């Protein structure tokens, strides 16, 4: 009986699966293939990275085959519009100006800022709810990139903070190490890749939760597609919801970072 049921189930899967495979939908995915650790060729010459994992995860759920197309960044959107590929999974941020030409899925990676400071400095800058404690910023020198989203956030949220503005990301780390600043706020992935994972960053750590205010930091990175493909977009969103909730996105991120880089609760944007 049990055996018969298993067999039946197997038939059912076949019955459903075979026609799908027969008319196998192939999605062509554009990416740079040079943007580690998001999309790049690994030592074996295979495409690897967070974007690649997301694309593969989505494809598996919606039951499509993938074909990766390597495309230079500045031609990415024209190539999508010219139907050279169907999706952009290339760490492309969702912006208003891009939304005029193309469409995006829900974000699979978020834009956040995070503070980095000396280990065990006991700064206590954020409360348990993830809100900054303005009083504890007094006397703390903050390094930020000039006219960055982080600078705008500080100006709006912590206008009294003592801020020094730098022209590039590297200088932020230099002066943090040199002791001219006590904390910096930047993109946590950059901070990890360029600083915290290196020798110079050994004595430093994240000293705040991820600060995620869409007004300042934007929506995040989504899968790009041509406008007027609402059905496909719906399937992509459904797959991303699954990947969020079953922990796949976190698993993909942990291959490269010691922290997740997506919105841990599924909160659709629009």
């Amino acid at each position, binding site marked *: 009986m049990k055996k018969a049921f298993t067999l039946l189930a197997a038939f059912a899967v076949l019955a459903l699966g075979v026609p799908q495979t027969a008319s196998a939908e192939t999605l062509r995915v554009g990416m740079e293939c040079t943007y580690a650790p998001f999309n790049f060729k690994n030592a074996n010459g295979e495409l690897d990275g967070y974007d690649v994992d997301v694309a593969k995860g989505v494809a598996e759920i919606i039951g499509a085959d993938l074909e990766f197309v390597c495309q230079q960044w500045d031609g990415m959107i024209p190539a999508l519009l010219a139907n050279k590929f169907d999706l952009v999974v290339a760490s492309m941020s969702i912006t208003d100006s891009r939304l005029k030409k193309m469409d995006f899925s829900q974000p699979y990676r978020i834009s956040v800022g995070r503070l980095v400071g000396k280990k065990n400095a006991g700064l206590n800058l954020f409360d348990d709810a993830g809100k900054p404690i303005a009083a504890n910023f007094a006397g703390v020198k903050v390094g930020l990139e*000039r*006219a960055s989203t982080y600078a705008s956030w500080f100006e709006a949220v912590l206008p009294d903070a003592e801020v020094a*503005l*730098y022209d590039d990301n590297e200088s932020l780390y*230099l002066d943090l190490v*040199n*002791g*001219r600043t006590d904390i910096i706020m930047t993109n946590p992935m950059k901070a990890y890749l360029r600083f915290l994972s290196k020798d110079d960053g050994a004595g430093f750590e994240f000293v705040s939760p991820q600060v995620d205010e869409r007004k300042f930091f934007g929506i995040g990175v989504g899968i790009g597609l041509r406008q007027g493909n609402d059905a496909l977009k719906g399937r992509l969103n459904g797959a991303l919801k699954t990947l969020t909730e079953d922990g796949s996105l976190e698993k993909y991120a942990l291959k490269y970072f010691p922290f997740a880089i997506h919105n841990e609760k599924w909160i659709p944007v629009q």
Partner: protein
Amino acid sequence: MSFDFALIVDSIPKILTGIGLTFQLLFLSAVLGLALAIILLLMRISGRWYLVAPTMVYIYIFRGTPILVQIFIIYYGLPQLEFVRDSIFWPILREAFGCAIVALTLNTGAYVSEILRGGVLGVDRGLKEAGAALGLSARHRFIYVTAPIAIRLCLPAYSNDVISLMKSTALASTITLLDMMGIARTIVAETYAPYEIFISVMVVYLILTWIIQRGFGWMEKRMSRHVRSEA
């Protein structure tokens, strides 16, 4: 290209909030640089090789390299050395302002000492001999004869150096200081309007140059009364 004159009018007052810092950078480094230049000059004309040689090396290095490089070495380079961070100079070098003053002072000191040397060498030898023949000591000859005449000879070149020092203060914006240039660059990064903002800051610098030129012109006129003949 659309040109937004309203943006110029708006941004000049914002830029002017940095003029205090620009003035502080200019005056502090001009005064300290002049003091350094005088010390370097005295070493240079002392005739003792162990004073002359290091002075010449110093002047060669600081006149022969871009001031931006000097600023970066002082600001980013020195703190890499542990003993610098442990030294009594760290409270100065920790601050971007301190680093800017140190860099501008060291740089202008090298230039001004050469200007002063030109002035001292330009003083008629006969005048120094006249002082010597009267029994004035070397120190008195320098203070009462050589220096006052040399200062008059140097003034035009010195005023040019003050103007270039004033322009160099803008480089302090590269090490986080919000002088006029620092504020202008921040506004540009926010508005993406480089033409309007940089033209505004140019106008302000031009006015400062004009004021410095007029100031030195007035001083030269006053100090060279003795050259005006009665006729």
